[in-house]
């Protein structure tokens, strides 16, 4: 088994060779209901990848298949070119951090972190002194010095999360897998831990997958984001790719705030309910399509030319600006736009606006 990160005698973390992970056409069906429809993904050694999607998108199923806690119905998973599916979970050498941590409640922090080392067969087990040195090094790495004799129930959520990570790192995993690592924490702790996890990753260099439904978390933390929906990968890319060049209305709608309107493309421009919007649709085929724009990307215009028109049905404060909820077009489609807080309320609540940036998606 190739050890990747090991703690040297000074207790600092030394790096080994992280592995590439290849996922080929993985299919998973639970009692005939498909959870994954042929997912393929190549991840380079040392990459930090977010599996992002709403619940039911198959992201956790994919993570569990990588771990060996579930088996795919079809497909291949390679760790560094070697078939991983043939290995039982014990032999796969992965570090798995569970959503609710799954710390062993009858063991101290020290014993939790040491567990993966102490259960090794005698021949591969490090000496007691080695285990101790390594565990204390990890406790230092996750900044829990002095808490080694505490029990999990005596720790805060954020501290438990760190113990769970240290326990997973202790076995020198080839791949680190985190299931909703910050899901059970409050907002401020989430942000701190997010930054901290990034630092740990940069220091230890594991190939890391983490599952999240929080787009902010995924975009901020990951090298690459894998957006999933209904058992399929919708898009893979950097935060910039995903945010600026969404590949589908789903990604556009799921990442960031957005309004989507059903339009028709005619003569290279978008038409909403028969009324020209003045928005060009370069390269889009004539016929039905979806117009997407972001609420903060609109300007108000005079109601005399091509524009989007709507009636305000609700408004609320949104950060530094005011968000208007509109019924747009003749068929009362819902859309949201942001305006300045001091902007005068138009007569009759009627408003004309124009997105400064927009996207036209072909029908599915």
């Amino acid at each position, binding site marked *: 088994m190739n050890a990747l990160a090991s703690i040297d005698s000074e207790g600092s973390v030394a790096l080994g060779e992280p592995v590439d992970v290849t996922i080929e056409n993985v299919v998973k069906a639970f009692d005939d209901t498909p959870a994954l429809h042929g997912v393929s993904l190549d991840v380079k050694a040392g990459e930090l990848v977010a599996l992002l999607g709403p619940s039911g998108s198959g992201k956790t199923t994919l993570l569990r298949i990588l*771990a*060996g*806690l579930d088996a795919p119905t079809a497909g291949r998973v390679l760790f560094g070119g070697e078939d991983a599916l043939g290995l039982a*979970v*014990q*032999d*796969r*050498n*992965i*570090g*798995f951090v*569970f959503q*609710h941590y*799954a*710390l*062993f*409640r*009858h063991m101290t922090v020290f014993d939790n972190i040491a*567990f*993966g080392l102490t*259960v*090794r067969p005698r021949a591969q087990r490090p000496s007691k002194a080695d285990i101790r040195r390594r565990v204390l090094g990890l406790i230092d790495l996750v900044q829990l010095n002095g808490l080694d004799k505490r*029990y*999990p*129930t005596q720790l805060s959520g954020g501290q438990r999360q760190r113990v769970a990570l240290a*326990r*997973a790192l*202790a*076995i020198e995993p080839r791949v680190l897998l985190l299931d909703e690592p910050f899901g059970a924490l409050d907002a401020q702790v989430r942000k701190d831990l997010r930054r901290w996890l990034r630092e740990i990753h940069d220091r230890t260099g594991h190939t890391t997958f983490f599952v999240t439904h929080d787009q902010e978390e995924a975009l901020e933390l990951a090298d690459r984001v894998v957006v999933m929906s209904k058992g399929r990968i919708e898009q893979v890319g950097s935060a910039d790719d995903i945010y600026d060049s969404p590949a589908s209305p789903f990604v556009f709608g799921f990442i960031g705030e957005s309004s989507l309107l059903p339009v028709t493309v005619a003569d290279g421009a978008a038409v909403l309910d028969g009324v020209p919007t003045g928005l060009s649709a370069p390269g889009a085929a004539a016929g039905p399509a979806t117009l997407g724009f972001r609420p903060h990307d609109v300007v108000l215009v005079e109601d005399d030319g091509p524009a989007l028109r709507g009636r305000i049905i609700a408004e609320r404060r949104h950060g530094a600006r005011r968000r208007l909820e509109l019924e747009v077009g003749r068929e009362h489609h819902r859309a949201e736009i942001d305006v300045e807080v001091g902007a005068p309320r138009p007569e009759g609540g009627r408003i004309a606006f124009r997105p400064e940036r927009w996207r036209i998606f072909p029908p599915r």
Partner: protein
Amino acid sequence: MTDVTHGAPVAAPRAFVSPATERRVVRIVLVLVAIAFLAIFLFLPLISVFYEAFRAGFSAFLRAVTERETASAIRLTLLVAAFSVPANLVFGVAAAWAIAKYEFKGKSLLITLIDLPFSISPVTSGLIYVLMFGAQGYIGPVLADHGIKIIFAVPGIVLATIFVTFPFIARELIPIMQAQGSQDEEAALSLGASGLKTFFRVALPNVKWALLYGVLLCNARAMGEFGAVSVVSGHIRGKTNTMPLQVEILYNEYNYGAAFAVASLLALLALFTLIVKSVLEWRYADEIAATRRH
């Protein structure tokens, strides 16, 4: 800015009573009813058992419990418990594990079957064993040909006791195992632990308190079981009489002092069980709470 008016302090509303609290009178009545009930149905009988046991003095008590047939009944009771509790320990853990961790056809049937000994009269279960293993039973004659005697012998008593006490441990374990789920075991496996190590170092410690309760209750019942054992025992003095059966025999012979002496031992067992349970709960309250938490 909000306008804040400073005026004379408003008088607090009269004695606030939490809406979820009963009125004082109701509370007192409820407490008294509970105490009266406990006194009449629990404390009074318990005290009278010990009173009757020691009425003729401590040496009479000692003589009664060391008398040959009684001493043999005590030994048999301990022997029966020594077989049936471990048997149910293994069965209870296996059944609870299967029910809590796996989905399979017939699972609800299994849960119902585990409860069967609770819902069936012990006498009936004893009779079923006679029907099975008795001299005129289905397999009794075959076994008798091989020199195996079950009914009116110790094996029958052990079998009947195992049957009657079989829900106790499984029933304690199932809810806590279901609540805990499989994540801890998955974590142990992902850290490289073998199945056996996962079981003994993670799964079992997670349920140790529930398991201990189950064992205590199972043991108390195994030693105290009367109905089923009475049917299969045959009441052979000095041979197949357990303590409860011995109490009945002594009582029927108008030997009240000795009957109550043996009965007081059973009562002591009950008290001991409760005390151990309470001490454990008090001593390990934090740890128990931690294990029960999700």
